[in-house]
Structures are given as structure tokens and as C-alpha cells.
């Protein structure tokens, strides 16, 4: 394969990939195909750069391979327990990797058939997975035993500017801090969001914060490390590294005096049919993909956005040599300094439009249809053929760990997002994850949280935003009127849940993005958000097979409580004989005559079967006949069998 989606090394604004070592090219195999890349690539970034843009198919349509949705990978010769996430697994020269299919559903094709299809089928290339309605393969590290145990006064999850600020504040107090960052480098999404007037630029800001870690305490930053569990004073994380030239994962368990959750926010998916076709990408993942690894899909790009941040992306991309066909804004007549820059650069702009549907074209491109965003009727307005649609969305705080820590959430209508509320002992949410937006507030919130957790007085945090007359607020997430009932699926989020608003019977967990989208689509009432988030998004241990069996309960009572009072105040236990040598089953009702079959007229019931080989049974009877010559009738399965009382064993006292 060649690197068809790799930008030039000297692309403007660092879009050539700041993490790449272009002087160290490499090759590895992925599902049998050669993939070229560079030192600094991840398996995912190299795959995307080589034109591998599909993770497989779902409901008959291709599903985009993205930072939010990528199969696990492992060495071909290893077992699934060694699988790593493609977005954190380093690309290593000579590796022979396979991608893991999703967990099998009953509708999946058998593995041998998949292998045959791969070998002889028309569709070539890696990742031909077929996704059912369940999520992708289970991450093996979720059930793994930690191999390393650490201790820290403060654990910070996320090395964006909020997390770095928290770590710096703790270090200044002489504390031991461990920062867990799932990306390859600190900084989070700082470069995507940029700075506003009066703030330092991103590079300066980052350098200042990192320098601020050099305090009296010790700060250890673990990159390519994702925290996935919190509770009981511990944080558990999965770290991907390289050992003896091979990528390997390790589970860390950190005993934490306190935890700062600085997990930032993720970009929600606008809802329209085709929103996860290959070529439809998010703005944040596109920006960071270019900045980190010099990856940009296709040559022609159209941007659809409800906010101003995507304009900055478009300007940078145009400067980097990409053809920016159009920027379509859902807001009517928006204003922003980035919009002014775009106008000056000559990029075609349109406002008041949203994407109504995307379809694939025969030349592996996309046909994007737009409609007026203000019209309930959503009649088609225009369309464009493009290679890549950057579908920007609203921002949803990443609160998985907060919820796992027992934190609660609410729907914030002004932010169109689910946000944290309330507190938890020893845990704080900061930065964008807490709803802060400006760098100033994000940093201040990180510092304040660390100080508060460590028993110090924390300064108050205040937001600092560009006035709305200069910066139009974000529009709510767009929801196409075509989202349901169409041929192509309109997903509610970008990740592994594959939820398409099909209703509560969706198999698999829901993501925060799914739930936020469902609220926006009026599928979930605001009052249920917290409960649904806590019930359906938390990571849960799998249910293991079990041989549990109930232990016999000692019971000397022949007559169970549910027979109390059934047959008068003092029924008698009797032994019954069956003239036709038939054994009676427990529960069979006894009547005076064979014609009666109304249960309320029964005079007794069989309470115990006879020993094996014998007939009759033990019965509880009200006022049994005095002599065995008088027959009574045991009714079971529709037939009435005669019986005689041959022994009275006394009252039950019921």
C-alpha cells in the first residue's frame, strides 16, 4: 500500500505530523496487507494514511475506521488476550498484525467463511469485519489482573491543560502525582480549540504547564495509557508500550489519595443517514490526526459545522494544501474571527444549512445533501460531491470515570450536553469535562480542584468567553428528518455502541453521546438522563459462566405454609391407597366425588408421593372418611382416580 492519505512533511501548521519521525520509515502487515508508515505512527494512523478507511460493514454498509471506532489488533502468532487498541498500539517495523472481529452474534458468519471471503471474495483489504448489533470485541485488559501497582497522592486522568494544571498545583505542594494520558503526548485538544485574545498561544501555554510540573513533588506522566476503572480509592489503567521490539499492554493499578478527572470532551456526531460512512469524519479527530500523524483523508473536503472551531481546521487544511470545497454552517449568519479568516482565504461559505444525508458514490467518494437547518420540513437545498465530509458536532464532556466513581449527571440545555453535577469524596471533575470552555477557566479549574483535594484553599474559577456579538454560540446538534426508516443508518454516536435511535431494545451499552443525542431527538426525557447514564454506560464486568446450585433447605414440615387453612382448621395427614395401584403426584387435589373439579371445593391435596414402587400417597384431608370403604377421588391431569384412607397420621395443627 502507499500512503495516499499522508500530508507532506512540511505541511503548514504542523499538519505534516508532529509525532512522526519521517527519517524512520517502517512497514508492517495488517490482516495480510502491507502498511507503510513512520516511527511515531500508531497502527490506526498508519492504516488511515494507507487508505484503509473502513473498519468493516454494519447492516450492509461500510463503517468508517476512525479514532473513535477501530478494531483491536494483535500479533498474528499471539492470542486475543494480548490485543491492543489500534489507536494506542505503536506501528512497529516488521510486525504481523491481525485485527480482531467483533464478538460473534448469532447472525455472524463463521470464521472459516470469513477467511474464505477474504481470500476469494471481491472485496480485498484488511478489516473486513461484519458488525452485528453488539459492540466490537471485548477489550481483554478489562478483566486482566494488574501487573503493576503504584501509589500516588493525586492521580490525574488526562494530560490536557486542566490535568497538567492540577498536576502542577499538586507538585508545587510536594505531592506525588501520576498523570494518565491516553494519547501519545500531553496537551489534549489544546491545539484544536486554540486560544482567545489575551491568552497565550497553545504552544506557549503547554510549555508553561509542563515546566510547572517541575516542582517539589514528583510527577509521572504515563502516555498511551487509558484509565478504565475507578473505585475503592484506586484507579486502574491500561498502558501500551514497547517491550523487546513488540507492542504490549499492561494493566496498572494506582492507589490514589485523590483523583482529578480531566478527561476533556469528545465531539458528538450530527445525526443524518450515512454519518459513519468511510470519508465522514469528525473535526477534532481530523485536526488531531493531521497534527499528530499528518493524516488527511482524500483530496476534496467539505466541512459541515454547528460551531466556529471547524473554520480554524479548514483554514489550516487549506494552508496545508487541501482542497476545501465549502464550509456549511448550521447557524444562520454566524460571526467569528475564524469565519472572517476563511472569507479572507477565499473558502466558499454557506450558512443556515445542515447535512440531511450522505451516500457513497461509485468513485469511492461521497454525495452530501444539505437542507435548511431552520426548516422543520427539511426540503433538499443543495448537494455536493466530495472525498471527505468533516461533520463537526457539539461537545460532550467525557464523564465515564465520573459516573463510575458514583458521580451524577444532568442535561444542560444551554450546552446541549450531559454535564456532571454534585460531588464525590476525593474525586473532582475539571476542565472541559466539567463544562469549562476557555483555557483560562480550564486551567484554573484544574489548579483549584487539586488544591481543594489536597486540603488547601482553592480560588474561585470564572469563565472568560468571547462576547457573543463577536462569536456566535454553537448551534444544537443537527438531526436530519431522514434519520429513521431510511436505507442508510443514521447513528447516534461515533463509537462502538452502533446505536441508531432504534429504541430501548438496543443490544449493548449506550454511550454518553448516544444518550445526549437521544435527548436531543426527544427519545429520552431530561429527567431520566442521570438514571439512564448510570444504568447503561458504566463499564461492567462480564457475566461469567457459573455452576451455582441452590443448597437443599432442611425442612421437617410435610405440610408447606401455602396449604395453611386450605382444608379447614384441623385437616388430617392421611395415607391413601389407590385401588388401581397408581402413585399420586404432590399437588393433586382430592374431592369427595369424581364429578367435582372446582379447586375451591377440594377437601384435600396430595402432599407427598409414595416411596418408589408403591402406589397411593400422603395427603392432607379435611374431615376424611371414617372407613376405608368410602372412596375419595384424586384429580390429576384431568382424570379422577379413586383412593381410600388407610392410615390417619394426625393433625397438622394448621
Amino acid at each position: 500500500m502507499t500512503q495516499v492519505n499522508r500530508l507532506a512533511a512540511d505541511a503548514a501548521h504542523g499538519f505534516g505530523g508532529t509525532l512522526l519521525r519521517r527519517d524512520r520509515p517502517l512497514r508492517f502487515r495488517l490482516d495480510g496487507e502491507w502498511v507503510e508508515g513512520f516511527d511515531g505512527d500508531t497502527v490506526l494512523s498508519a492504516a488511515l494514511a494507507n487508505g484503509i478507511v473502513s473498519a468493516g460493514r454494519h447492516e450492509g454498509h461500510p463503517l468508517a475506521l476512525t479514532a473513535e471506532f477501530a478494531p483491536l489488533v494483535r500479533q498474528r502468532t499471539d492470542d486475543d488476550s494480548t490485543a491492543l487498541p489500534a489507536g494506542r498500539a505503536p506501528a512497529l517495523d516488521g510486525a504481523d498484525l491481525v485485527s480482531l472481529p467483533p464478538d460473534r452474534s448469532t447472525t455472524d458468519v463463521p470464521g472459516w467463511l470469513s477467511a474464505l471471503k477474504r481470500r476469494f471474495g471481491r472485496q480485498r483489504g484488511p478489516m473486513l469485519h461484519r458488525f452485528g448489533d453488539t459492540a466490537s470485541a471485548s477489550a481483554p485488559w478489562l478483566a486482566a489482573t494488574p501487573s503493576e501497582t503504584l501509589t500516588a497522592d493525586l492521580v490525574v486522568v488526562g494530560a490536557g491543560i486542566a490535568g497538567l494544571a492540577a498536576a502542577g498545583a499538586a507538585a508545587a505542594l510536594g505531592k506525588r502525582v501520576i498523570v494518565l494520558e491516553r494519547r501519545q503526548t500531553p496537551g489534549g485538544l489544546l491545539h484544536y480549540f486554540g486560544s482567545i485574545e489575551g491568552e497565550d498561544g497553545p504552544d506557549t501555554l503547554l510549555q508553561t504547564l509542563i515546566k510547572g510540573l517541575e516542582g517539589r513533588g514528583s510527577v509521572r506522566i504515563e502516555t498511551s495509557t487509558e484509565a478504565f476503572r475507578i473505585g475503592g480509592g484506586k484507579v486502574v489503567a491500561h498502558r501500551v508500550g514497547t517491550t523487546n521490539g513488540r507492542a504490549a499492554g499492561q494493566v496498572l493499578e494506582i492507589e490514589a489519595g485523590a483523583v482529578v478527572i480531566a478527561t476533556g470532551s469528545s465531539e458528538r456526531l450530527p445525526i443524518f443517514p450515512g454519518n459513519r460512512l468511510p470519508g465522514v469524519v469528525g473535526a477534532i479527530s481530523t485536526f488531531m490526526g493531521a497534527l499528530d500523524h499528518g493524516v488527511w483523508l482524500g483530496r476534496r473536503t467539505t466541512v459541515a459545522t454547528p460551531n466556529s472551531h471547524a473554520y480554524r481546521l479548514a483554514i489550516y487544511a487549506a494552508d496545508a494544501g487541501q482542497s476545501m470545497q465549502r464550509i456549511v454552517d448550521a447557524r444562520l449568519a454566524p460571526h467569528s474571527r475564524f469565519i472572517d479568516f476563511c472569507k479572507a482565504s477565499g473558502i466558499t461559505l454557506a450558512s443556515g444549512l445542515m447535512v440531511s444525508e450522505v451516500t457513497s458514490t461509485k468513485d469511492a467518494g461521497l454525495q452530501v445533501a444539505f437542507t435548511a437547518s431552520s426548516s422543520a420540513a427539511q426540503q433538499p437545498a443543495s448537494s455536493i460531491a466530495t472525498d471527505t465530509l468533516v461533520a463537526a458536532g457539539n461537545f460532550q464532556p467525557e464523564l465515564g470515570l465520573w459516573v463510575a466513581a458514583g458521580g451524577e449527571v444532568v442535561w444542560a440545555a444551554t450546552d446541549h450536553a450531559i454535564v456532571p453535577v454534585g460531588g464525590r469524596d476525593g474525586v473532582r471533575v475539571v476542565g472541559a469535562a466539567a463544562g469549562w470552555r476557555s483555557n483560562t477557566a480550564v486551567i484554573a479549574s484544574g489548579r483549584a480542584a487539586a488544591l481543594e483535594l489536597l486540603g488547601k484553599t482553592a480560588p474561585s474559577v470564572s469563565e472568560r468567553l468571547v462576547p457573543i456579538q463577536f462569536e456566535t454560540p454553537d448551534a444544537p446538534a443537527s438531526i436530519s428528518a431522514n434519520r429513521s426508516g431510511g436505507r442508510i443508518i443514521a447513528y447516534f454516536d461515533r463509537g462502538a455502541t452502533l446505536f441508531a435511535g432504534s429504541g430501548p431494545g438496543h443490544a449493548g451499552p449506550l454511550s454518553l453521546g448516544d444518550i445526549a443525542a437521544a435527548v436531543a431527538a426527544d427519545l429520552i426525557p431530561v429527567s431520566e438522563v442521570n438514571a439512564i447514564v448510570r444504568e447503561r454506560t458504566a463499564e461492567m464486568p462480564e457475566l461469567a459462566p457459573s455452576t451455582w446450585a441452590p443448597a437443599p433447605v432442611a425442612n421437617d414440615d410435610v405440610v408447606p405454609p401455602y396449604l395453611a387453612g386450605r382444608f379447614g382448621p384441623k385437616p388430617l395427614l392421611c395415607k391413601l391407597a389407590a385401588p388401581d395401584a397408581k402413585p399420586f403426584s404432590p399437588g393433586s387435589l382430592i374431592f369427595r366425588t369424581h364429578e367435582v373439579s372446582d379447586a375451591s371445593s377440594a377437601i384435600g391435596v396430595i402432599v407427598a408421593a409414595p416411596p418408589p414402587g408403591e402406589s397411593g400417597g400422603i395427603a392432607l384431608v379435611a374431615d376424611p372418611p371414617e372407613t376405608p370403604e368410602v372412596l375419595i377421588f384424586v384429580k390429576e391431569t384431568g382424570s379422577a382416580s379413586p383412593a381410600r384412607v388407610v392410615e390417619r397420621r394426625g393433625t397438622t395443627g394448621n
Partner: protein
Amino acid sequence: MADNAYDFAVLGSSAQAVILAAFLASQQRRSVVLVAEAASGFRIRRAFDLGMAPLTRPETMSLLRRSSSETVSALDAVAKGLVGRTTAHFVADLPTSRDGLMHFRQLARLSGIQADVVGDRALPAAGVLRVRDVPVIDARTLLPALAAMMAGAGVRRLDAAETAVSLKRDGSARLTHKGLAAEARQAIVVGDDAIATYLSPEALDRSLVALPASGQFLAPAKVPLADPFVSYLDRGATLVAEGRAGIHAVVTGSTDTQDQRLGSTLRLDAPLRRAGAAQFTSYATMDGAPYVGPVKGGRALVIAGFGLYGAFMAPALARMICGVASTDESAWFAVRGSSRSATRALAAEFTRAAA
């Protein structure tokens, strides 16, 4: 009557609470306010509503049959398909439970219900009873489906998340919703969620016990559920298949063994992914019979412990509450009240072994 004064405040989000509110308003022509959670259907299921259960009292079987028929007719009139039909399997591992199941079987057959002992190769020693053609309600679809009918009958619906409820000793209730107050002459606390929300442990009759419970939504197993509805009496687990989407399960009893007990009911050769879970408290009675009676030290009415069939008893409950119950209904409810009444022992039903 003033807009903010009602005969009854029905508190609870279960199918039993919703249908009871509907019957009180539509059949008994009373003014009703229902305080329930908003029903999107995305919450994890905590109960199943079946028109049958392993009953061992003929009077309960008789009452349920009649009340269930009324319920089905009324709901069918609102929306076809609101009441479905399923085949229910009840599994008893222990000898005492197998006997109880056989008692139920005989009672059921005499009532014209098709209940057969079937074999299960996976559970050769267990007693398995299959009951065909059992009415079943999906509570997730109930409230939206009944919304128009209930509104037409004058039932006012308040979101429990936005409503403060104050129960008085005389059984009345004061409701405050978005700053506006309403009064109801009689509060009726229905089911687990309402009991947990509105009553302190001290307010519960001693016949009621609080059991830890969990509702779970499991990903589809490689070996799907053999039957659409299976209740494992001695394992405290009930499982309902949701087509290809997954398996809903409710497990009651000790949290130490919940996962093991649930895992033992599925033919798993590998761990099964969980798509959602909710922990809650289930209120049951030690004697297996439901509780319909006052709170301790007050007159608010508590309805609890019906298990599977509570929703289908709503018509009879409505008549009892309004004082127009038939003779046999009155007699039935009379022995299912407070534990201080010695007659409660005469209401005991089959109940599973503690786990």
C-alpha cells in the same frame, strides 16, 4: 372538584401503578394523580408483568383469572398488541419447590390453564413447568400507550423527578410540582420504586422484607434463551428474551451470589457482556402472599409483593380501594393486609428458598 384536589394519588412507576391509576379513573370514576418516572423505555427493566405466577391458593388463581381478563380487555381496547402472549417456564431445583410447582400445576389445569411438566436436558433434576398462552405486558410501552386514555379519564400525570410528595398520617398526600401544590385524599404507594422513594423502613409492615435486587440487560448469548420467559424459582432469577437484542434479567437476593445465580441460568461457555445494570431494592413478603395494607402508623395504602402478576390485579385492587369489591375479593384482600392480623398465615403462597 378543584383542579388541585384529587381522590387518589397513585405513587409508582410500575405497570401495576399505571394500570391501577387508569382503572381508578376510568372504571371507578375517581380523580387520580399519578406520580411516576418519565417512561422513555431506556431504563433497565426491574420487573416483568405476567398474567400468571406459581400460585398455590385457588382463591388467588380464581381472582387473578377474572382480574386478568378484565385487564386484557381494557388494554386491548386502548391499543391492540399492548398485551402480548408468551409461554412462561418456571424452573424448580429443590424438592420443596418442585412440590410447590406441582401444586400450582394442578391448580392451573383445573382452572383451564395449559401447564405441562417438560424436561430440560441442561437441568435433568429440576422440575420445569411450561405454561402456555400467558398474557404479558411490557411496562416500557405502557405509559406512552395509555397516555391519551388516561388523560381522557382525567388522570393527571406528574413526573416523579419534579414532584415532592408529603404523606400524612391520615393517608392523604400533598404534592408539590413546579411550585404548585395539589392534595389527594388517599395516597397509594405501589411497588418497589415507590416504597423505596416515599417510605422509610420504619413505615413498612413487618411482613415486608427488603431484598437487594438487580435488573440487567445482557448482550445476546451465543446460545440464545431456549424459551422467551424463564423464572428460576430457587435461583431468584427471571430472564426474558428481547428477540435478537439481548436478555433482560431480574435477580433478587444476596448480592454476594447474584452474578453466580444469574450465570448458572445461562448456558455460557464464555463470559457474556452486560449492556446495562441497575441495583434496586425489591420488597417481598416472607410468606409469599402480597401485601395490601396501611403503612405502619398511618393510613397511606401500600401495595407490594405481588411479584409477576401485580399489574393484572389492578381491576380488583381498584374495586377494593373504592369500597366496591365483590364478596370474594373483599375476603381475599382481608387476609393480605397487616401482619398483626393472625389471618395473614392463611394467605401464604409458595415462595422460593432464600439465597
